[in-house]
């Protein structure tokens, strides 16, 4: 028996519903702010102004967004193949090792535009190799990828701590980090782009990695929807049985998808390491891998959605920092609560309002939810 269906027009599906979810998240967050005795409207103004009000704020927002685009894409690529890669955090962290080796070796001999491609390759390769082991265990031994990737986060963290307090640390230093890179491993800033629009920037870490992130978003779209490999990944992701029937090798597709996912996670490390800190320090990923899961979910696993969701989370990071500064009653932890609410409503409760919206659409314009409406692109 066929089940009747109702479909929303694409703009409502990809625009209206996320917007409603987001509004609800902010309303609930507003109540939390009220609870600690602050004015939620003023808080909202500070948050948004902090993120977008001044040139510096915008640059910071986009800097954070760059990081989240990479981790979001990483999670999305694996998810299209039906794999939940929770190891983005560890893959990005360990990729710092690859970048460190390239940068520490070449930063005094090569210009940045030669070091950068080498570092991109090193970060991608190390990230991919770190994802290879859980992928192999899943494909050949049936060890669940969620469990193994979580464990590999801890292994990555332990290895990096060992290296950063030992072999990679300059002998005379007290800080658990590599020596600072020379100019040959410092990426150019992109602040001039924002200054083109007349905004003033004091100092902000937005750098060329942002452009790399946008290129990667486009390449991921191409991979998933326009290549044979992407087709095979989606087939396996929707139905492993159909993939087997179609002659797609389970081992090959799991390993390939996870390595691409790991490579994207690895590239995330370029942004803070080469673009901002100019060294590899302990815990430089600081949870961006996990935020990537929320970004990917909120972006509906589509690169365009991921870029937008990453900017939203960048805004929460930057505006949140301003908010914690301006309103002492609101601590950094409060910002984490707001982020949590966004994740809750936009990710976990994504479909909560959908039935009501569908009913509303059906009653206003029956045709808009009918079969004629299904003409959108294959996203």
């Amino acid at each position, binding site marked *: 028996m*066929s089940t009747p269906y*109702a479909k929303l027009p694409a703009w409502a599906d990809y625009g209206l519903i996320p917007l409603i979810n987001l509004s609800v998240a902010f309303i609930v967050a507003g109540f939390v702010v009220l609870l600690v005795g602050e004015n939620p409207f003023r808080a909202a103004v500070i948050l948004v102004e902090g993120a977008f009000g001044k040139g510096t704020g915008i640059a910071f927002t986009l800097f954070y967004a760059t990081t989240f685009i990479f981790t979001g894409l990483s999670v999305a690529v694996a998810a299209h193949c039906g794999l939940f890669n929770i190891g983005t955090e560890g893959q990005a962290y360990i990729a710092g090792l690859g970048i460190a080796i390239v940068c520490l070796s070449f930063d005094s001999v090569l210009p940045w535009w030669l070091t950068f491609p080498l570092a991109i390759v090193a970060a991608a390769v190390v990230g991919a190799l770190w994802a290879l082991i859980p992928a192999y265990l899943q494909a050949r031994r049936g060890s669940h990828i969620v469990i193994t990737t979580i464990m590999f986060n801890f292994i990555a963290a332990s290895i990096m701590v060992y290296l950063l307090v030992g072999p990679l640390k300059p002998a005379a230093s007290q800080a658990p980090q590599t020596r600072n890179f020379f100019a040959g491993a410092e990426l150019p800033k992109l602040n001039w782009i924002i200054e083109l629009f007349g905004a003033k920037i004091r100092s902000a870490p937005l750098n060329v990695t942002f452009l790399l992130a946008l290129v990667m978003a486009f390449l991921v779209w191409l991979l998933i929807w326009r*290549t044979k490999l992407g087709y*095979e990944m989606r087939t396996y992701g929707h139905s492993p049985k159909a993939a087997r*029937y179609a002659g797609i090798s389970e081992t090959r597709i799991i390993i390939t998808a996870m390595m691409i996912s790991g490579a994207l996670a690895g590239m995330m490390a370029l942004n803070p390491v080469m673009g901002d800190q100019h060294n590899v320090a302990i815990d430089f990923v600081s949870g961006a891998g996990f935020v990537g899961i929320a970004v990917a979910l909120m972006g509906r696993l589509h690169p365009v959605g991921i870029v937008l969701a990453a900017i939203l989370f960048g805004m929460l990071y930057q505006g949140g920092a301003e908010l914690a500064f301006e309103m002492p009653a609101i601590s950094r932890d409060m910002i984490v609560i707001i982020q949590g609410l966004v994740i809750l409503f936009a990710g976990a409760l994504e479909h909560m309002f959908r039935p009501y919206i569908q009913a509303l659409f*059906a009653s206003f314009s029956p045709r808009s939810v*009918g*079969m004629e409406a299904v003409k959108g692109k294959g996203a």
Partner: protein
Amino acid sequence: MAQAAIELIGINKSFGAVRANRDINLEIARGTIHGIVGENGAGKSTLMSILYGFYQADSGEIRVGGKPASIKTPNDAIALGIGMVHQHFMLVDNFSVLENIILGAESDALLKRSIAKARSELERLEREYGLEVDPDAIIEELPVGLQQRVEILKALYRGAEILILDEPTGVLTPAEADHLFRILKQLKEQGKTVVLITHKLREIMAITDTVSVMRQGTMVATRETKKTTVEELAELMVGRRVLLRVEKGEAEAGAVKLAVKNLTVKDSRGVTMVDDISFDIRAGEIVGIAGVAGNGQSELLEAISGIRRAVSGSVTLDGKPIDLTGAADPGELRDRGLAHVPEDRHHVGLVLAFEENENSILGYHDDPRYLKGPFLNVDAIISDAKDKIEKYDIRPGNPRLKTANFSGGNQQKIVLAREIEQDPGVLIVGQPTRGVDVGAIEFIHKRLIAMRDQGKAVLVVSVELDEIRSLSDRILVMFAGRIVGERGPEATEGELGLLMAGVEQEAAA
């Protein structure tokens, strides 16, 4: 006519632009068995879902026992004495029969008293209706026929006076179906009302008192079963005359295309499902494999098509061996001209979340016609899908529509179009018309016979005996993993039925 148990007056229900039910009027008399037939998508399930409180009608009135009723949730329906047995059972597999029966109707925080009460109630129901089931048996250990009986008991335990059954015989053997019909007749004698939704016209003729036919969301006719014929009902359902039995000429069997020798296959639990089977299929013939579901047919199909590894035996395709015990690869077999329409089109043959055009290349996505280097040649894929849509009359004819939005019959056409249009030498088909409406059945059967007439070898596995008999040039009967007999197409249903039930005869080859 007896008093009406249910009256539906002017029921309308739309899902967006799709009008699933239009102005439906239906009166179901108390103490009768009332059949509702119609093609997939005719609106039968929607109508019953409205009656059972899953959906609400946009307009119209429901009367139960003469009184207007407001049914907003299944609980309302249950309170009014309406019970439903779903096509896919709603049972907890690792619970016992008793636990399943009280599920949702527990009267206490502690289970002990509910269970004791249910046990005595169950005994009464068993006595009254002849519905024997061991109350302590675990559901997953029961055969499907008994699981269905538990579903019926669940409804009766909740005091159902009106029982709705949605496609109840889809999963049953002929013998189990007969038993179900005896139970339904007994329920009728006890004064219960039964509503039977099905697309099998023979069942309607065998058991119902009245039958209503739905087509495209409207109720086109209600007939007294005694005064109608299968042909008339089929015509009413489809809106035109239908050939219930395909016409075909004599087979001209040629060389052996596919030879299976001493094939043994085990399932994932290590149980031998195919036990030392040998047979040949020649060019230009259709070989049918009959049997009750679960006697190894699925595993046989999977082994031949390279999806499942065989334990031992050999299969040759065009005289060259297929490596079945090693890493057999469905892709390689496709290249060698073996096409496969799998039994389970929802999870194996199609990716329902894909657009139609994406499914039209599944398994053939390596074909250079559909590629430009590593990229998909989207234009070529879509124009290819459009050709198939036209040739196979797939509706709606939009290659960018999500596959889940096609009806069962059209989904099956998508799979068939994909496999047949690759012009394979051997076509193996599992359950060619499961869940497919009458109009599409005729089309699919004609296509398969056209394949045969082009000199292809066709293997058909089906649990529908009618289908096997009308399509096959030779019929093999499988029972418990073995081939227990071979018959010609003239074999009677009784003869095949005995073989399917494992009653070995002297004449069995």
